[in-house]
């Protein structure tokens, strides 16, 4: 960490510059325009405006926070400067687009973008000044908010984000909510003003109360006698299960479809969690096992592929499922043996290489008679229950739910066991783990195979759900996707996996404009999480301590007297 030096106003300019670059990128990659048709509050403010103003706000928040220790006027000034900088850069962009013919280079630098940035049909100069002014205003608000008590500040920010989210999820919520409430809150595009205000107040009240009382509640829970505590957690689990059971009926087919997708990722992420989160092995070729599960299911159950059918009889879903899982498990062991001998970071790149090799082999003409080549395989069997075939997303939901519960049970049990401890040891210090007589390759292999098995399970169900299989759905992006789910949720944390999958898989599905920018945002999210919250949104206690190393670099472990000699050899 750098040495603390007094805050200077140039720092505020720097934050403003970073924020401004972020805002420029949002505008130039086309995200602002894509979201400009999405009203948050009907006829008042659009998502694009919220996003750009949000960037100014966050940049100013950083600047003001950094300036906290200095005089109050400096804090306010730096907030305003940072906010205004963001506005200024956007204004400059708006002014430069046409004269410089930026369209030739940047596909999104068009008239609509200019119109979006300079509203009210003002002349460019006045529009620009308004932009800077709005930025400064955001900066002022950000500076002001740093002086609020933390409780108030957090509830404020949470309720702002909450209102925006509810506005964005209009299409989904309108279906679920009772008609009259829906009509009060929503217009055809965006919230009503009254709805926005009521929602804001409501969320604010709830978060405030919860944040204020949370410690009390948890403390009361901790103080309960164990028996009572067990009853409570049991009741909570049952309630959760009942809700999960009824969910597809409550949310309808479209949301069930989304839940199914989230479910596939949850199972996969629970598996990868064992590999990355427990054992600390960064596996970037994880999609290979998902693909192997899916392809085994497809090849065993499809009526196509005459060459295969001549040898292996066509199976149904339930007959094929164990083979699919087993195939993934075997692949995990076979790939694991060579891969796990490599050291440190090389593991990431070697697994990436393996994943690509498998994809290329599947794609190639060489194996086309067996795997269908680039066209893939169709006619994959659906699960059957008695005589009925499961094909609606709502019915499929239950199979996935069972899969998730199995994966959860297995990984939770593994975590708190001799195996979990061995993995922790390997993750924290391989050499010491070996000196504790932990067989490194063996335990890494166990983690790898467990992860592969769960990916295979997810893949088999995915293949069956899709009904057809193309190699394009198994590229490296899936691995990165699962990894991002883990990172956002919190490596090693089981509830984190659910949170991560809901945020990263569920939300983009519900926000159709967002889909195109999904990878862009994921990349940014990975970086930002690693920089500011490496332990994730729902971390595990151990992990907070482990990943926050830079703040307290094991001070007490290092020899305080300086007497210990530098290591020999």
């Amino acid at each position, binding site marked *: 960490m750098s040495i603390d030096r007094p805050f200077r106003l140039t720092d505020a300019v720097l934050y403003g510059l970073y924020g401004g670059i972020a805002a420029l990128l949002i505008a130039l*990659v086309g995200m602002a325009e894509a979201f400009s048709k999405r009203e948050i509050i009907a006829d008042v403010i659009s998502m694009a405006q919220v996003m750009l103003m949000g960037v100014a706000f966050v940049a100013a928040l950083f600047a003001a926070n950094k300036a906290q220790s200095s005089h109050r006027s400096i804090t306010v000034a730096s907030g305003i400067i940072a906010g205004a900088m963001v506005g200024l850069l956007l204004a400059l962009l708006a002014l430069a687009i046409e004269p410089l013919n930026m369209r030739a280079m940047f596909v999104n630098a068009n008239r609509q973008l200019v119109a979006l940035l300079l509203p009210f049909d003002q002349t460019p100069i006045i529009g620009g000044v308004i932009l800077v002014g709005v930025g400064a205003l955001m900066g002022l608000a950000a500076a002001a908010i740093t002086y609020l008590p933390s409780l108030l500040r957090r509830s404020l920010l949470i309720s702002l984000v909450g209102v925006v989210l509810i506005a964005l999820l209009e299409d989904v919520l309108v279906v679920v909510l009772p008609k009259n409430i829906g009509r009060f809150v929503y217009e055809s595009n965006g919230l009503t003003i009254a709805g926005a205000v009521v929602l804001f107040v409501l969320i604010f009240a709830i978060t405030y109360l919860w944040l204020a009382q949370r410690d009390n509640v948890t403390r009361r829970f901790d103080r309960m006698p164990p028996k009572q505590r067990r009853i409570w957690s049991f009741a909570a689990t049952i309630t959760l299960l009942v809700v999960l059971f009824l969910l597809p009926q409550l949310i309808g087919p479209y949301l069930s479809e989304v839940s199914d997708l989230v479910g596939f990722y949850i199972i996969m992420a629970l598996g990868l969690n064992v590999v990355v989160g427990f054992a600390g092995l960064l596996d970037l070729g994880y999609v290979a096992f998902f693909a192997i599960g899916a392809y085994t299911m497809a090849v065993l159950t499809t009526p196509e592929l005459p060459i295969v059918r001549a040898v292996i009889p066509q199976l149904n879903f339930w007959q094929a499922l164990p083979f699919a899982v087993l195939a993934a498990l075997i692949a995990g062991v076979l790939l694991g043996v*060579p891969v796990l001998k490599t050291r440190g970071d090389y593991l990431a790149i070697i697994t990436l290489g393996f994943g690509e090799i498998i994809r290329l082999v599947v794609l190639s003409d060489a194996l086309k008679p067996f795997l269908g080549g680039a066209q893939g395989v169709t006619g994959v069997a659906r699960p059957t229950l008695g005589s009925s075939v499961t094909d609606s997303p709502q019915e499929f939901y239950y199979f996935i739910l069972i899969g998730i519960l199995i994966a959860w049970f297995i990984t939770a049990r593994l975590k708190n066991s001799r195996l979990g401890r061995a993995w922790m040891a390997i993750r924290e210090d391989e050499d010491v783990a070996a000196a504790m007589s932990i067989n490194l390759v063996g335990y890494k292999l166990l983690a790898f195979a467990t992860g592969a098995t769960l990916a295979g399970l997810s893949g088999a169900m995915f293949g069956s759900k899709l009904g057809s299989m193309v190699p394009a759905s198994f590229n490296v992006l899936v691995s990165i996707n699962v990894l991002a789910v883990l990172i956002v949720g919190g490596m090693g944390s089981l509830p984190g996996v659910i949170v991560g999958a809901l945020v990263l898989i569920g939300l983009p599905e519900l926000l159709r404009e967002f889909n195109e920018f999904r990878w862009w945002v994921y990349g940014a999210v990975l970086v930002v999480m690693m920089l500011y919250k490496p332990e994730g949104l729902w971390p595990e206690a151990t992990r907070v301590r482990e990943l926050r190393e830079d703040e307290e670099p094991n001070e007490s472990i290092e020899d305080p007297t300086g007497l210990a000699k530098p290591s020999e050899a």
Partner: protein
Amino acid sequence: MFARFRRKYDLTDVILWLIGAGLLLAIVYGSFVTLSSGKYTAEQWLNFVIFGLAQGGIYGLIALGYTMVYGILGMINFAHGEFFMFGTFGAFFMADYLAGNGMLESNPFLSIVLMLLVAMLVSATIAVLTERIAYRPLRRAPRLVPLITAIGVSYFLQYTARGLFGSGVEAFPNVPALSGAVALGPISLQRSQIAVFISTAVLLAILWLMVSKTKVGRAIRSVAEDKDAAALMGVDVDRTIATSFAVGGIMAGAAGVMYGLVFRQVAFYMGFVPGIKAFTAAVLGGIGNLPGAVLGGLILGVIESVGPSLFLDGIGIPSPHQLKDGIAFTVLVLILIFRPSGILGERLSKRA
């Protein structure tokens, strides 16, 4: 005897060696079948090799950046392929502009120099910014953290390019002076390939001089050896690391221009596969070893270009050229498993 053997090697070693031996056998058998069938003429083989060398030169230039960063920070900079991609875009827009006003035709040498400058500037700027914003704060973090960050940066940059420049494939303008071939005895060399050879050689020579003779180079080497000791000796570690990112970016930018000239296309996703291959090249040559990176690139380029016809064809795999990338990745996997220290060995301190 057997007990002694068991003590030294466990089962996994045996499996590994069996896999290795199997692959080797397949390669030898395939090559034998192809060569004895006489399917390709000697000129064709030579052309494969030359094409492989040109491609390998580009890998080598990109690999230099991987190798420097790994040598200094001990981290795989997954985003390095994207620096290269942005460099190619920089060159593309410059070339487009120059083609528009006729410079490309009238003054090809100056045009290429301009393209190189723009590409290097773009790549180096992005490399330095990436280091400053994303990597520097994480220098003391546990090893998974910067690695994941690098992956995030890679996707962020890739999709930034997609958003900024569009998702299509753009055709790189034709440089008339570089199209066509030169006959050199029995072999014919594409002019663009000659340009790649010359530029790679010149850049490598400059880089070599810089690292071995100048003060900056000394600083880089000392930081690679021991950051804390270098800092005590008055070397500005942050600045030196930023410099090495800049140098790596410059090389990636140059590679971008070469790529544009040889393959004549740009697209947002083009950084990923060459990036992995360049990393393979860096490991092949011994990571942390500058000449090794270029040598590794050349070797990989040739294997990749000769391989499909030489052994995949011989084993009887249909349309073997689909598996060209597969060969590169297989080389990657094999080298990491069997000889992670590379051909020339690692120059910089070994890390666990």
